[in-house]
């Protein structure tokens, strides 16, 4: 399989009143054609910034990007704004976290859905309407013709997220970024939307990057998983390999903090103590050192490099799990 998107040494910093905030600190990732990657991490670990920066959507003057983003053989970090914009919609598309705010409240579903079709694919009004109905059928919305005439506030959250997916899929993107697509939805709808995304990915033969804070979400729906912490990829492996063979203490802590039915209901829920390090003041050692249960002296002083192990498993730890220490 060929590489569709490759990020190398991607760094994103923001100017803030408190100094430079490094949201993404040197990420290398590769997404192959037809592959799905789950990006997991807690709030503030740089997942959303990573996905937006890969698309080039961070245009505010305070954001600075270094490193390269190569999409479909084209280096987007040196391409003109117009060239980057040409990849949006048709090459890369994004589903946003909150379907309540990601649709324009004063315009009907139909006009928002056909907008991309007409502008990007040059369809006529009639063709666009026909395709919009197909798209709404594709995302399993009942009675699509009626839905086209509705305003976003007349639809439920799950339906809106389906509309968002339909909009993102409108121009047949090769790569779909799903930025926490289910966080704003309740659990039953979450499962439906995730299943829908996986089905569509296979039907349409797209690649997908699924950004989430929930390891359970990515478990069944992605080929590979990248775990992020403090703007770095700390563990990367195929999904099965990762769950079978956790090497990074942070990933283990994340797994332990998922509530389980067999736990005593009176017991305390497992949490990861402490908080993310201040992104404006990077520390010399491992970013997870202050919260790691296995921390040793070396962790405080030396920043761990990403190590490669068998089966393409990568992790960023001096003292990985599963190894005698």
């Amino acid at each position: 399989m060929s590489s569709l998107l490759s990020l190398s040494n991607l760094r994103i910093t923001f100017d803030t009143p408190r100094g430079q905030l490094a949201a993404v600190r040197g990420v290398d990732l590769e997404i192959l054609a037809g592959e799905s990657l789950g990006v997991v991490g807690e709030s503030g670990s740089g997942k959303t910034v990573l996905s937006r920066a890969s698309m080039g959507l961070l245009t505010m003057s305070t954001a600075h990007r270094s490193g390269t983003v190569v999409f479909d053989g084209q280096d987007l970090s040196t391409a003109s704004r117009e060239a980057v914009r040409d990849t949006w919609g048709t090459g890369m598309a994004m589903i946003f976290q909150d379907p309540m705010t990601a649709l324009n409240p004063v315009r009907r579903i139909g006009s928002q859905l056909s907008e991309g079709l007409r502008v990007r694919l040059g369809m006529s009004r009639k063709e666009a309407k026909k395709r919009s109905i197909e798209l709404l059928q594709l995302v399993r919305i009942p009675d699509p013709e009626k839905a086209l005439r509705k305003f976003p506030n007349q639809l439920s959250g799950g339906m809106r997220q389906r509309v968002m997916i339909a909009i993102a899929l409108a121009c047949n993107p090769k790569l779909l970024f799903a930025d926490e697509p289910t966080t704003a939805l309740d659990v039953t709808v979450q499962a439906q939307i995730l299943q829908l995304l996986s089905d569509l990915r296979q039907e349409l033969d797209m690649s997908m990057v699924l950004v989430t804070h929930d390891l359970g979400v990515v478990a069944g729906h992605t080929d590979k998983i990248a775990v992020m912490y403090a703007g770095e990829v700390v563990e990367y492996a195929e999904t099965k390999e990762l769950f079978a063979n956790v090497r990074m203490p942070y990933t283990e802590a994340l797994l332990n903090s998922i509530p389980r039915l067999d736990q005593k209901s009176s017991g305390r829920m497992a949490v990861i103590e402490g908080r993310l390090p201040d992104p404006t003041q990077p520390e010399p050692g491992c970013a997870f050192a202050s919260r790691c249960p296995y921390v040793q002296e070396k962790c405080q002083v030396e920043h761990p490099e990403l190590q490669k192990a068998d089966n393409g498993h990568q992790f960023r730890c001096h003292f990985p799990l599963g190894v005698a220490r």
Partner: protein
Amino acid sequence: MKFKQLGIFSKASVIWLGIVMFMVVFGQWIPLPKPTNFDIDAMGVGLFDSLKHPLGTDSNGYDLLSNVIRGARPSMLISLISVGIGGLIGSTLGIISAYKRGKLDYIVNTLFNIVLSVPALVLGLALVAVLATNPDPNIEVPTSRRVIVIILSLTIVIIPILGRIARGATLSWSNREFVVAARSMGMKDSQIIMKHIVPNVLPAIYAVAFLAIGVVIVVEGSLSLLGVGIVDGVSWGSMIARVRGDLEYAPHSMIVPVVVLALTVIACNQLGDILRSQLDSREGRL
């Protein structure tokens, strides 16, 4: 919102503005005594005293009803045109500068603040004094020229008022997720402004524009009262100006145009409030 659902006060406002607009459009063809003809036999006729002059006449014998009806056109047209043009220019500037941000926004916003700091009346007085007066007091300045200068000065007053509303609304709307979503689909900035920003900003502009119409009617009247408006008594403001010395012996000749003007301003404000409350309720439903 349907007319039936409105409160009684709002209904009255809508009906009153309808009457005023009727006077603006058809006032000239209503068979009434000519507003410029004075009736030498009926000077200072009181309210409802005579069938020939239902609202009476002023101390010069001008028929008040026909003056009020004919006065609707200049008063309303001046305010509609200046709010229309000023609103168009102001909201275009406001929306574009707020969307683009950076230097352009800084410059436009500074200009808005500078213009806002000049009182409307002072600006109007200065412009009429410079642009619509003759060095030779014997040569009269044509009314049309005065009207244009008044419209110009009122437009300048309106631009920053509506411009700032548009700017503020755009600032909040352009940070919404759906704008990023539209960009992520490859829409150009101009398309995003026209299709996503403008439809959301427009209701706020409408609401304030109606309030502004009321303000402009009053400012135009004040300019007339100060003698720099339309002088020959054809607008409501200039009617008030003409009879300002007669308050003692023919008070109704001032009360009639004042009441008409006040009702119109109140009705405009009410309509603006209706639009704004509709805006709020739609926001609330999100």
